């Protein structure tokens, strides 16, 4: 771990000022991902700005009947919130499917959106990785790519995006609210928040400007319907998704579906949603129509179809 300095701020303005004074600084909240990466020399910030004291720890109703979730709300609190459990069950289910109770107690909503990939080559600084070391290459291509993405991949990166919560937010059409260093606020649709890696360097990851801070996530008014999150993994708990399906299915058989584990970002298609009444095969085929699987992760194509089938069968039952 590279030596670093640390400060704790209480307002967005103070965070912006701290960032201006320390270009390249990283914000830290729960620290469940950043600290691991710092210990492994993958992230090496010279300065940390602790934002835990910022006033973004509330869950409150919005004027149009939705919910605003502060960026600092802990994952456990969000999953347990009665309004979330009642109206946004897919989000609650997705969160408890991730990590461990200890990590969820510490991890924040803002941090969860910003999880770095779990690609094993990203985690070993001896190996090429365009995400960690732009231009060094992608060791996952042609390597052990069983967990990697089949859609949204680029010429330089096939990393899967790990967050379960973000897949639920994608199916709910949430928006990410931010404040930039000059005080400007903006709202970024979740569909645009996570970037495709693209074919050029650096590898695309998040739609944030330097120093831009997530303040919260806004959920639109409740959708009704049946909320499901089916996460397929190599063991029963404490593992990242091979494939996950977040779904909201209405009594008339229409609905929405987003995928985790298969894409370089949470994966959804409006065209695929329209095919839900026609069944899993049609939906999966549309969602993964441009898939570029490797020999080792080709199974995710079929697994996606069968997991969607499981979710649709369950929605009927």
């Amino acid at each position, binding site marked *: 771990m590279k030596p670093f300095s640390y400060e704790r701020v209480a307002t967005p303005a103070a965070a912006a000022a701290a960032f201006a004074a320390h270009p390249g600084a990283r914000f830290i909240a729960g620290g469940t991902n950043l600290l691991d990466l710092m210990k492994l020399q993958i992230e090496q910030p010279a300065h940390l700005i602790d934002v835990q004291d910022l006033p973004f720890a509330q869950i409150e109703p919005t004027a149009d009947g939705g919910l605003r979730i502060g960026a600092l709300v802990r994952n456990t609190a969000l999953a347990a919130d009665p309004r979330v459990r009642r109206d946004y069950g897919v989000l609650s289910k997705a969160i408890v499917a991730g990590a461990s109770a200890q990590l969820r107690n510490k991890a924040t909503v803002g941090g969860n959106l910003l999880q770095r990939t779990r690609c094993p080559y990203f985690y070993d600084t001896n190996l090429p990785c365009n995400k960690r070391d732009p231009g060094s290459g992608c060791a996952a291509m042609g390597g052990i790519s069983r967990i990697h993405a089949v859609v949204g991949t680029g010429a330089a990166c096939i990393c899967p995006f790990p967050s379960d919560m973000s897949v639920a937010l994608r199916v709910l059409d949430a928006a990410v609210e931010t404040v930039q260093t000059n005080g400007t606020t903006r709202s970024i649709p979740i569909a645009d928040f996570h970037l495709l890696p693209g074919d050029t360097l650096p590898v695309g990851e998040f739609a944030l400007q330097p120093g831009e801070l997530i303040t919260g996530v806004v959920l639109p008014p409740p959708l009704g319907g049946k909320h499901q999150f*089916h996460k397929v993994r*190599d063991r029963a708990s404490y593992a990242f998704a091979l494939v996950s399906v977040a779904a909201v299915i209405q009594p008339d058989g229409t609905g929405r579906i987003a995928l985790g584990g298969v894409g370089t970002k949470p994966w959804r298609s409006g065209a695929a949603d329209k095919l839900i009444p026609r069944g899993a095969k049609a939906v999966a085929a549309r969602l993964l129509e441009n898939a570029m699987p490797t020999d080792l992760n080709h*199974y995710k194509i079929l697994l996606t179809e069968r997991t969607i089938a499981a979710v649709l069968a369950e929605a009927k039952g």
Partner: protein
Amino acid sequence: MKFDKPAGPNPIDQGKVIGKPTDRIDGRFKTTGTAKYAYERHDVAPHQAYGHVVGSAIAKGRIRSLNLAEARAAPGVVDIVTWQNAGAYGTLPTNPARLLAGPDIQHYHQAIALVVAESFEQARHAASLIRVDYDRADGEFDLAAQAKAAEAGKANAVPPTISKFGDFETAFAQAPVKLDARYTTPDQSHFMMEPHTSVAAWEGDTLHLWTSNQMIGWAADDLSQIFRIPRANIHVSSPYIGGGFGAKLRIKSDAMLAALAARVTGRAVKVALARPQVPNNTVHRPATAQRIQLAAGADGRLLAISHEGASGNLAGGRPENATSQTRLLYAAPHRQTIMRQTLLDLPEGNSMRAPGEAPGLMALEIAMDEMAEKLGLDPVEFRILNDTQVDPQDPSRPFSQRHLVECLKTGADRFGWARRNAKPAQTRDGAWLIGMGVAAGYRGNMITKSAARVRLETDGSLTVETDMTDIGTGSYTILAQTAAEMLGVPLSRVTVKLGDSTFPTSSGSGGQWGANNSTAGLFAACSKLREIVAQKLGLDPALADFADEKVRVGKRSLRLVDAARDGAIVAEDAIEYGDVANKVRVATFAAHFVEAAVHAFTGEVRIRRMLAVCDCGRILNPKAARSQVIGAMTMGVGGALMEDLGVDQRFGYFVHHDFAQYAVPVHADIPHQDVIFLDYPDDKSSPMKAKGVAELGLCGVGAAVVNAVYNATGVRLRDYPMTLDKHLAKLPMIA
């Protein structure tokens, strides 16, 4: 004490303390954090510096240049130790890869330097500033290719080990029912909770090493060789160990580098391997490629068995002998085993819990399931039908005891095996396909000399000293139980001190030999103490009965404590084995039963129930033994379903080298486990009449899981781990 004839009646048979499900006597220390593990030995030497191991970034080649300037200038750095400045050190014949490399590199993450600094963080940071230029050389990392070449006689590192009885080829060719199938098992990591850790300090020309090690005697011998100093000048201490599974049988880079750095710096130096270094820096269980051929008559009796197994290792490394149990498990007149070893440039392969038998049974016991199906026989019945009470290679040599049939029958009864549908893919529970599987387990019982010292203190309590280790197994407790039983004192009156090279040399912990041998060594010492005590008290040692802290002969009853009136009495002895076990086969047996559920849509596998029935001699402490078997069953589930180090053939290393990538079961994967011990004392094993248990618990589990999955789905899997991607496309259509 020489064990040269079967054990007669002895005080252990009383079963007043031995055989009772006793809580660990060290449990309180562990649960309160007062049991000091190697990295917590802050008090043993002052002014400890922290070492961080730098591992090679390439798998094979040579260091062209090493630039330490920036690292040396980093805050807190005391020194950086490499092969260039470490001073003279020897190598070990038991280590095919050097513990400190340079300039030649033999495997990925092989240690090339130790950065020593005032704090752990400073050492780790400075390590990242070392600049190394390598000349990368091509290596061989592909077991599948090497195994194929070895089978064709082209790539054997050493001549194959071949064992043949009867005429396998002819018998196989002529048999009415046969199976010929290939199986693979992957490289696995021990991944015990506590990584390899050592603190080293020199006191003149005496080396102290506070470490985490299963075999204190071997550690002292090895250090003596490396540093070319008498063994008497080596002090090794390892009283508490956070797991080993074989990874700590021999000293590793942490120990050697701590000692070298302590010599270079004149400081005490503490080193722990970082978790991601453990698989590639140390040892692992090598992958295997196996072929099994079985032939039977229509009556279900095996006529011919062949088991071929190949593994790879560095030159001078040991093979993973997956075929060993096949020589002894089932009857058949015609049989052969062929073990091939190839050269690979991966890190060193070495013993991991039940080396040989664990991966061998993962294959053999699937083959037995397949063969039972071909014969239309129940897999339990098929195994019972082919049981043998003698060594199939030498019918004049019986097993000392063999209750495998009882294991299978008891297990089938208790598990509800009769409810299993012999036809696969017939049982549903909602979205889940349900199946049951069985496998037999076999593991040898190794015997080795083991010494102990026991002291009757002046207050009438006992102190036991032996360099035996407790790697989480319960050694402290069973040794205390042994002393308490032998001298007739309550357990609370026994203090046990372990893991120190100043104590008598024991069997150590490994190969499931620790419990039987170390308690037998203490039995010998306690027998001697009984004699001395009886004599002191003026009683006939042959007639003396030790109970309730008293010694009795007839109506004479004297207090044990009175024997130590003039000072503590010390007795030291060792158990040494004659040829009792050469005339018979002493081994351990198990039957494993598993109920598995497979998600009909996604292919996810979840274990529902597990049962192990174990035949492994006298059970010294049913609670500790049960914990061992439950842990082993859990490890078996990991091996069956998820554990795989993942070889990257391009870079020649294990990709899954941390707990995020190398999955082991979590609580949610293991819902219900039960263990039954048949508990037949075996008078041919030792005076304790006990045998090993900890490795037996693993032997066969993987195959039982896979056989249950097959029964659930009808899809036969032969390549471990059985991740869902391997059967998804073949699963039954979904509604």
